[in-house]
């Protein structure tokens, strides 16, 4: 019964989908363009700063959502990949191992490689054990950076030293909200587009099959371990990219970005947004930030508000808000078979 629900909602190439594609693409294009126009329309630096943060976390949320969607596994430690990338940028700034451009690439590749290798072992475990082990990795890194006072500054964190130009543009582009918003929005769009392509490819469909029934997929003749580890690696790479953007924008890292509360928040964003659509978690991140900001202004009870929101969304809309939108969109043009 789970399988059916998933097949229906996960955008399997079906009869109804093809007719919808143009209008869907137009909607997506309008949304993307609107995003790029945001800095022109929003004058407040404070609002832009907040929105840039939201977009960075949206990338992290999308990376977790992709893992949930393709592997059916929830990572409790995605902050590890986010923080790993950010700390690599910071440490490279300090020791000058490589040019900053190379460090950016390395900061995406390292989490991916790390995730692939650990994934070969841990994606085989029961879902809860997987969650706990990802948490274990993240908390260990958190502890390491917290204790490593001499170099990483311990609890105080460390500044990220960057060259004055990166990829041929001035570093201020990455640090002023108006321009960084555009960079991050572009990164978010690219990540969602790439992951959507992967999700709809043969490989993406194969991993869904493995998620639904690993044993049967193996009997059909597919290898099942490497694809799952690869999904984990792709997800980690996206989280790493978010970490890179974070380190460029804030030019400062603290152990807080490795803590499980960040992983937990990102997981909340992913599920509130709905992981069945690749873009759903990004929507969840926006909503999370809006609610957090509004609730933080009004009352000090924001944990209760976000908790209630989480309960309400998961109970009423188990497919998340994107699932609701997809259902509305599916009903509107014509009835589903």
């Amino acid at each position, binding site marked *: 019964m*789970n399988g059916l629900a998933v097949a229906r909602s996960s955008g399997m190439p079906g009869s109804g989908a093809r007719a919808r594609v143009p209008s869907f693409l137009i909607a997506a294009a309008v949304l993307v363009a609107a995003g790029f126009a945001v800095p022109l329309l929003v004058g407040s630096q404070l609002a832009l700063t907040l929105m840039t943060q939201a977009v960075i976390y949206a990338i992290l949320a999308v990376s977790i959502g992709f893992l949930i969607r393709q592997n059916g596994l929830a990572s409790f430690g995605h902050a590890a990949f986010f923080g790993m990338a950010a700390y690599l940028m910071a440490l490279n700034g300090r020791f000058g191992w490589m040019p900053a451009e190379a460090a950016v690439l390395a900061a995406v590749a390292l989490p991916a490689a790390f995730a692939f290798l650990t994934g070969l072992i841990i994606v085989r475990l029961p879902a809860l054990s997987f969650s706990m082990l990802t948490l274990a990795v993240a908390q260990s890194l958190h502890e390491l950076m917290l204790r490593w006072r001499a170099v990483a500054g311990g609890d105080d964190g460390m500044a990220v030293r960057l060259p004055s130009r990166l990829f041929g543009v001035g570093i201020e582009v990455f640090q002023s909200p108006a321009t960084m918003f555009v960079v991050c929005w572009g990164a978010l769009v690219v990540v969602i587009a790439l992951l959507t392509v992967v999700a709809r490819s043969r490989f993406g469909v194969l991993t869904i099959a493995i998620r639904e029934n690993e044993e049967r997929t193996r009997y059909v003749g597919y290898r099942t371990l490497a694809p799952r580890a690869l999904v984990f690696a792709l997800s980690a790479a996206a989280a790493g990219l978010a970490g890179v953007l974070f380190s460029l924008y804030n030019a400062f890292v603290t152990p807080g970005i490795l803590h*499980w509360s960040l992983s937990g928040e990102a997981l909340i964003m992913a599920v509130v947004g709905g992981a069945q659509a690749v873009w759903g978690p990004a929507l969840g991140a926006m909503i999370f930030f809006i609610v957090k900001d509004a609730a933080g202004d009004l009352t000090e009870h924001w944990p209760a508000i976000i908790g209630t929101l989480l309960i309400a969304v998961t109970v009423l809309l188990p497919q998340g808000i994107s699932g609701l939108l997809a259902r509305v969109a599916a009903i509107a043009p014509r009835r589903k078979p």
Partner: protein
Amino acid sequence: MIQIINGLVYGSFLYVLAVGLVLIFGLRRVTNFAHGGFFMLGAYVSYAAAAWLGFWAGMAASVVVLAFLGVLLDRFVFRPLAREEPIVTLLVTFGLLFVLEDAVRTIWGKDFISVDAPAALAGSVVIFGSQYPVYRLFVIAVAVAVAAALAVWLRSSRIGLYVRASSVDPVTTAMQGVDTDRLSALVVAIGTGLAGLSGTIAGPLMALSPSMGAYIIIDCFIVVVTGGLTSFVGAFVAALVIGQFHNLGLAYVPEVASVIPLLIMGLVLGLRPQGIAGHGK
């Protein structure tokens, strides 16, 4: 030597908390983050009740209130969501944890509250040549009593048989005619009641604060996962081992103490993916 007893105390306490999770996981296959919140709430309920009724009545009140909340949790959260993906229930309980923390913070404030051991257990005894608080030995006794009571109940009663069957395979158990919904209300109530009990015994061990639940739940999950998810014996062994090493770590290598339980879990799962006493998948 005293350190080893301290480790035993922490391990015992972890066991009482974790075995409640094992019970719930065995029947409902849910990752219950709210367990940490219930533990914390249990500590505050017994603290409040103990103010007029004394420690023992506070303990009883905490267990009863939490068991009642457990019935509600099962009826209104676990049962309706049983057909959804496990992650849905996980996130609902995660949200509950936030709500419980905020409620407790609103009622009792966010400052640390310390609780005295009851008069009967306030003294200390001489063990291995040094003074040792009686209360800590009492914690070990509680864990032994809980373990013994559970073992007897699970092995000799009909309901215990159902619970054991269900923790191996809930679907087949239901097919054999066991009303797993009714069973689970009882089992979840016992599980949350144990959270209330461990919250009570935690009072004099550690300071009360609204974040104590979120802090302890991670160690608790580590115990459950290491033990093998649905195994009561596994949880017992894992709690004692992890409690022991965690405490030795605090005493001798405080810098890395909080990573030790994680390392033990990684090591155990690396060697035995199903946990210490888990059933093969």
